[in-house]
Each structure stands twice: as C-alpha cells, then as structure tokens.
C-alpha cells in the first residue's frame, strides 16, 4: 500500500532552495580560489582570476537575497524552545544511531535549527564584511584597518558556512527519505511520524 504523503515545502520554496544552493557553490568555489593557493585553480571555472574576482561578490549577494526569501518563511519554526534542550541532551544517542530514544520534535529538530541560525549569521557576516572590501565601489569608503578585520571575518564565516553546509548535506544522506522534501516537496507519513512527530500531528489536525 502506498503511503500517504505530506507536503513539506512548496514549489517556490524548493526552487529558491536550489537557487541558493547553486549560488552557494558558485560563490564558494570562486571564493575558495582566493583563500588558499592550492585552490586557485578553481578560478578557471569562472574564466580566470580576474573574472572570479569580479563575479564572486555578485554571486554572494544573489545567495543572500535567495536565503532571505527562505529565512522569512522559516525563522519562526526555527526558534529555539525549552524542548530543544532536552533533544540536545540526547543528541549523542542520535549520532550513535539510536533514534528511538529521542524526544519528539516539531517541524525542525535542534540540530536543524542550529544549522539554520549558523547559516543565517555567517551569511550576514559574509555580506557585511564582503561589502567592506568590494572593489571598486565600496572598498574606498573603509579604512585599511577595518578591511583587514573584514577579510579575516569574511574567511572565518565562509568556513563556518561551508561546515554548516557539509552537516546540512550529510544529514540528508544520513536520514533516509529526507531528500524528497526538497525535490518532490513531500515526505512520507512514516518519515514524518518517525522524525517530526509533533509536526505530523499538527499537519494531520489541520487537514
């Protein structure tokens, strides 16, 4: 018998998600080219060092615009609640593969919420610091000392964003049945009951 499906992400949100993902990879690869000499070859993907330098900030701004679209829709569901503390206490068991011992969660669990806020804050820092040394338009308005702090913060938050994204992608590989939420927009009822029982209840009631 085919399982009942629950809608988790609408068409527009999914398209936006994949736009953000594409911009993340383009901005990320062009940025990494400047971060470490061993990665400079990545600039070839963008037509050389000059073009990578020219395109990188635009790609970053596009990623931020896309992310904000998603942010305003999802931030309420990602507020940290007292129940999350309970989940955090048991997080070790989850990593050992013991799913049964986890307290019930709503639309997002504590781990997902942390990734969400990590991405949000690192993107904000990336945008603000990136503008500070964006040539030729904005860099002249900032002192050299400010730009020195900005470039360091920019790289640190880029690494945080990349690490957050690795966790984000791994979670999808790890927890089977999750990927279809962002491809087809729906998840199976079994998946919802197992991973987000409170959300499942909520959805079932509203239907």
């Amino acid at each position, binding site marked *: 018998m085919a399982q009942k499906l629950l809608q988790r992400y609408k068409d527009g949100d999914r398209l936006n998600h994949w736009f953000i993902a594409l911009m993340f990879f383009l901005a990320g690869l062009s940025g990494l080219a*400047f971060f*470490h000499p061993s990665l400079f070859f990545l600039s070839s993907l963008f037509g050389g060092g*000059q073009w990578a330098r020219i395109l990188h900030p635009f790609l970053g701004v596009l990623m931020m615009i896309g992310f904000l679209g998603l942010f305003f829709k999802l931030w309420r569901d990602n507020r940290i609640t007292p129940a999350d503390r309970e989940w955090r206490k048991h997080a070790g068991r989850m990593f050992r593969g013991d799913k049964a011992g986890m307290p019930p969660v709503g639309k997002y669990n504590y781990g997902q919420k942390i990734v969400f806020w990590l991405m949000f804050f690192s993107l904000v820092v990336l945008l603000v610091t990136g503008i500070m040394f964006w040539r030729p338009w904005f860099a002249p308005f900032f002192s050299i000392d400010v730009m020195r702090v900005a470039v360091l913060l920019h790289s640190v938050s880029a690494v945080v964003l990349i690490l957050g994204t*690795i966790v984000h992608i791994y979670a999808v590989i790890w927890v089977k049945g999750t990927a279809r939420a962002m491809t087809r927009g729906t998840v199976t009822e079994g998946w919802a009951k197992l991973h987000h029982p409170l959300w499942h209840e909520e959805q079932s009631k509203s239907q």
Partner: protein
Amino acid sequence: MSSLQSLDVVARSATTTPTPQVRTAVPEVAKLIDESKCIGCKACQVACMTWNDLRDEVGENVGVFDNPTNLTPTSWTVMKFYEVAPQEGSLEWLIRKDGCMHCEDPGCLKACPAPGAIIKYANGIVDFISENCIGCGYCIKGCPFDVPRISLKDSKAYKCNLCTDRVSVGLQPACVKTCPTGAISFGTKDDMVTYGEQRAGELRERGFQHAGLYNPQGVGGTHVMYVLKHADQPGLVGLPADPTINPMVEVWKGIAKPLAVAGVIGAMVVGFIHYMKVGPIEDKAEKEDA
C-alpha cells in the same frame, strides 16, 4: 612591470612550490634616502614618471607643495612635506620621498591570492607582475606602509618597482640618477646601511641627537631606507615607528588557511566514517511496505 625571464625570484605570491632561483650570487640592493639632503625639488617624481612613462592627472593645488597629495596608480613616488615641531619651540620643515619600501618580508606578497602577481627578486626588489594581478586589493591590506594603489581604469595594482628594469642591466633607479643633491643613493644593502649609519653619525655630531637610519626590522628590514633627522619620531614624516604585517593579515594568511582546509576535509571524512560505522537512519516500516 613586465615578467622578466628571471632566474632569481626568491618569493612568489600564492605559490607553494620553489621559485626559479638558481642564480644565487646576486647581492641585495638598497636605496638610501637622506632626509637631511633633500631640498624637495621633486626631480625624482619627474624622473619616475619619465622613465616609467606615467602621466598622472594634473591635480588641484591644495595650498602646500604636496602634489599629488598622495601616491596614485600613476605616481609611484611622491614628495611629502611636513611642518613639525619635534621639540617645543622648534619648527622644522621635513620632506620625505614616499614610495614602496621594498620590505624584506613583504606584506603585499603574503596577502596576494594570485599566483605570481607579486614577486621578490634575490636582490630584494618587490615587483608587481600586472598580467597576473586580479585586482582584489589584498596587497593594500598586507602593506604596512599604505603603498599599493589600484587603478580604476584597469583594476590592477601599481607601485614603485625600484626601476627593476634599470637595476637588472646595472643602472641606478631613475630617481637616484636624477637627484641633484645626492639625497638618494643606491648600492648594495650592506654599503647603504654602512653609509646611512655614517650619515646619521654626522648629523648627530651636528646637533641632531636622535638622527638615525630607518631600516625597520619588523618587516625584516627594507630595501628602501631613510636617514632621518629624528629617527626617534618617524611619525613626524608619516612613517610607522615599528611597522609589521598586521596581525589580522598574519592570522588570515597564516594559521587560518591550513586550519580551514583541514576543518573542511575533516568534516567530510568524519561524515564518511560515521556513515560507514553507524549507517543511515531509516523508516523500517516503510522498507517492509516496499
């Protein structure tokens, strides 16, 4: 500058393998600027633009001699004039020829992300190879002396190259050649240090108690040095007292790079091992259904 077929490149930006450096018998060179002999005629500025074929825009007269008021992409050396009172009641008019200091440990080169856009020759000259420059402006953040300038026309960084084209064929830099008072000398670094110390000693005898050689060790010494009348207060002529590559740049271009690469690769490896050992979380009921 142009990329010379050089066999004596001792450092190259964003490069992790050895540079071509078989030519080892190259003496280190230096330019010595004697503040006490400078009359502020700007002949060096003219010589620089003539030799390098640069024409800066005719700027505004700001009421003092400084023109242009600062280094630009087309003015690689600029005379700067300072009216100062080193001691109470004393007034002095100091003149400094500003330009690239050619650091032994160049911050611009350390900060540059483009392979081969900044190189340092065995003789100590730090040169920008414009065809490799990507216009990011990182050199500006690396430089402790605020020297590199990026052109708005072509988004390339420019600065004094100590006339490396002249030096490589045994000539003096254009500014040295033209200086009418002998305030600028050029030779091996050792000779210039000796001569500079001697000049500072003469100045001390003549009453400038704090005269000395400006060859800051925070950047490993420089290949452009000054004899300053008030070496205890280099700030009088706009020079940093103890210039170093900014700690932010050191962290960013030092420990941050290997740490970040290790962190990102490490995260992927941990994920892989976790999947192999613990395996996925699946809805078991769903499997039976299928």
